């Protein structure tokens, strides 16, 4: 185990660049968490990363004082990765970004896994400490890789949500197998290479089965969790090579990612456990019937009446939600806003931080349709201005306007901050049916006196509304 004690290199410039790299990661993460500095933070971390990569290539020397070779291979790989990565990242649609993040995260996990594989092949009798690190790095990397791929598949619709009966038990068994086999390998009870590869297989299986039953809508949370896994896997690489920048970078992401996962859950008022076991997100089918349980009569409103009401309002607030994204109606929505503005109506958007299926979803969606950003109100501002609004138009949002979050302590979403639409004079809700949203619960709002329902697909309804309005 002695090699761990040695410094990875005696080149002070390489060490210095690693120190700078670590510092840029810390600053980058810090700046990424403030709106004004986020973009700069990302740049800074990227600069530190670039520095660390190039100093490694040129200054790294192993214990025998030999530098790296195979430069051709290395640069070829770097170029390929850069070109493909840049193109993919530039081309991806805004709404497909979480998928992309999941894919890139999977790549990182796979990279960690491959490093462990090569190290295992290269050193047939490693010290137990080194072997432990190799095995742990491989397991976590593999789980992260496999899980990310499933998350990616779910987000782009290739893989459907499916709960396997007894899935928890199977998962638990696989997890046990992974631990048991690892102990055998690391403890030196078996030298059989097949056992090592069995660990790899079980870890991949575990990653798949871990993500499989979780509802597609919960994927941002899962990706954040897997993201922190990959961070830990990278940190194991840091231990393996006694490399401080891998260590700090990996651990920073591991801990920041874990906290971020928890914060994300909090923002939608759920616990991490809840997401992982899939207590409400996973069963859109199961929640469906609830929609039939009538609690009174929802009032409907005609397109024509809606057009009239809006045209003669002074202030209209649009509340976009997940349905608007599903219907891809952001451009038509912008259209509506422009028509109303021409008629002298003051239009704004009320943006709930967790409306949609990823944080900031609505900001991204409306930015895509070129909605001017001064019109987007954050939740607090929107609620402050709600009192003066004549007509609130809810487009495919549900949970984020559910008054149960404020009034009903028994509701699963109780405590989540909502857009308080009932402070306005009229509330018009557009959705296709009386079915519940993500949380799978009833929404009293639809039955309240101020509320009228305007059923239909958001895009269709908005198109019709726009032509109606042009005639008013």
């Amino acid at each position, binding site marked *: 185990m002695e090699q761990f004690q040695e410094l990875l290199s005696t080149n002070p410039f390489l060490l210095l660049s690693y120190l700078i790299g670590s510092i840029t990661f810390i600053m980058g993460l810090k700046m*990424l968490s403030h709106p004004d500095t*986020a973009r700069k933070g990302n740049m800074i971390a990227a600069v530190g990363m670039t520095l660390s990569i190039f100093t490694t290539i040129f200054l790294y020397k192993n214990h025998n004082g030999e530098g790296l070779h195979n430069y051709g291979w290395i640069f070829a790989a770097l170029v390929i990765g850069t070109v493909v990565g840049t193109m993919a990242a530039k081309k991806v649609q805004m709404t497909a970004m979480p998928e992309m993040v999941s894919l890139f995260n999977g790549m990182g996990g796979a990279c960690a896994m491959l490093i462990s594989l*090569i190290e295992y092949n290269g050193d047939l009798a490693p010290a137990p400490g080194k072997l432990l690190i190799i095995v742990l790095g491989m397991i976590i990397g593999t789980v992260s890789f496999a899980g990310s791929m499933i998350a990616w598949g779910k987000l782009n619709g290739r893989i459907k949500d499916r709960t396997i009966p007894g899935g928890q038990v199977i998962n638990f068994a696989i997890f046990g197998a992974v631990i048991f086999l690892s102990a055998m390998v690391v403890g030196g009870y078996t030298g059989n290479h097949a056992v090592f590869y069995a660990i790899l297989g079980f870890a991949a299986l575990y990653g798949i089965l871990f993500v499989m039953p979780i509802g597609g809508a919960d994927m941002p949370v899962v990706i*954040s969790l897997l993201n922190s896994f990959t961070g830990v896997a990278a940190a194991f690489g840091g231990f393996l090579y006694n490399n401080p920048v891998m260590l700090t970078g990996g651990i920073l992401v*591991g801990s920041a990612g874990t906290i971020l996962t928890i914060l994300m859950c909090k923002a939608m008022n759920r616990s991490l456990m809840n997401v992982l076991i899939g207590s409400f997100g996973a069963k859109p089918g199961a929640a469906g019937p609830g929609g039939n349980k009538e609690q009174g009569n929802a009032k409907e409103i005609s397109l024509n009446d809606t057009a009239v009401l809006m045209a003669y309002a002074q202030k209209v607030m649009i509340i976009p939600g997940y349905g608007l994204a599903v219907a891809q109606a952001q451009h038509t929505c912008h259209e509506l806003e422009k028509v109303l503005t021409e008629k002298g109506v003051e239009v704004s958007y009320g943006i709930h931080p967790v409306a949609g299926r990823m944080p900031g979803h609505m900001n991204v969606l409306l930015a895509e349709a070129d909605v001017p950003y001064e019109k*987007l109100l954050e939740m607090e501002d929107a609620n402050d201005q709600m009192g003066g609004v004549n007509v609130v138009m809810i487009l495919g949002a549900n949970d984020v306007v559910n008054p149960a979050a404020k009034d009903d302590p028994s509701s699963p979403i109780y405590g989540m901050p909502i857009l308080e639409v009932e402070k306005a004079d009229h509330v018009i809700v557009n959705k296709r049916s009386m079915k519940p949203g993500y949380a799978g619960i009833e929404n009293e709002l639809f039955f309240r006196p101020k509320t009228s329902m305007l059923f239909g697909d958001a895009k269709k309804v908005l198109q019709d509304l726009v032509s109606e309005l042009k005639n008013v």
Partner: protein
Amino acid sequence: MIEQMLAFFNSNYHLITIVILSIFLGIEVISRVPAVLHTPLMSGANAIHGVVIIGAIIVMGEAHEGDILSLILGFLAVVLGTLNVVGGFVVTDRMLEMFGKKKKK
């Protein structure tokens, strides 16, 4: 077993200290992030763990000329690591560019 663990602890003591400080730092540094930035922060963090590529470069650069398996796996590892790093930073930047418009307040 316990003895080995203690020996491991001893010889990696400084690294372990660094790990612990980094854990606290990771938590502190992002603990006040507003919900709108959750996605870009996740994406930026994702790019940062791409630092694992440095391990891949070392493995690749130390592989023997004849060791085709290591060369291929190493090559793959560097490609994947680069994807993670480059793609991660670029996609984060694009996200923030969009969000950025919203900023001014």
